[in-house]
């Protein structure tokens, strides 16, 4: 069995990449939510889009800064 390091690296790399992407998305949303809550009570918090599926992340809408 030839030693295909490339494939092993690809598999591990992909797994780590997707997990990292999901982890960072959660963190981004949490920060976004905190900013909106901390921002001001009157603005209507823009409901962040439903999280997209793996593999082909939907284009995130540009997060508008809530109107002051």
């Amino acid at each position, binding site marked *: *069995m*030839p*030693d*295909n*390091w490339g*494939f*092993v690296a*690809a*598999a*591990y790399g*992909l*797994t*780590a990449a*997707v*997990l990292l992407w*999901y*982890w960072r998305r*959660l963190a981004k*949303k*949490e920060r976004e*939510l905190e900013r*909106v*809550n901390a921002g001001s009570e009157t603005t209507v*918090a823009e*409901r*962040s889009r*439903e*999280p997209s*599926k*793996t*593999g082909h992340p939907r284009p995130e809408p540009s997060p508008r800064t809530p109107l002051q």
Partner: protein
Amino acid sequence: MVRVLGWLVMAFAVAPREVTQGNVQRIMYVHVPLILASYLAFGVLAVASLVYLVRRDPGADRLAHASGEVGVMFVGLGIATGSIWGKPTWGTWWTWDARLTSVAILFVMYLGYLLLRGTIEDPERAARYCAVLGIVAALDVPLVHFSVYWWRTLHQPPSLMKPGGFAGSSSILWPLLVNLVAFALLYAYLVARRVRLLRAEAEATA
């Protein structure tokens, strides 16, 4: 504290790589735990859906939602790593091998779950419908396995190098077990964070 646990788990999951002798078989240490963790995720999803239907408790619905998301990600990665592993082993990216096929169907089924959740605006209705779908899908899993298994093995002997063979020398089993625990922890951590985010979102709009 939870974030530290998260990073610990990530490092932990990759650690066993050095233990075994280098060859492509080592993808199994990621491929198998991913698939098993996704089964765990879909199991939790089904139970949470049942709890939601009985007690209409939004917490259960959030758990089902989060578990579904992480589950779809895990099973998607499981399929990807499985086919990456298949390339050198069988020379093709994809074979309709019994295990890979049923896992692929699982992926599409629960992708539908996320799609349904994304389509319905009213959170209460989305929770109800997704709970029903979660239960139907979970009950369907054994049927999918049986039908795919019979479909494959009755006509073509199981592929020579059956990926993810659980038997194996202890040197294979030990790192596999370690990784399994690592991915289960990772699942729990990601779901916990996603549930917290969902609760925060719900409070922001209530």
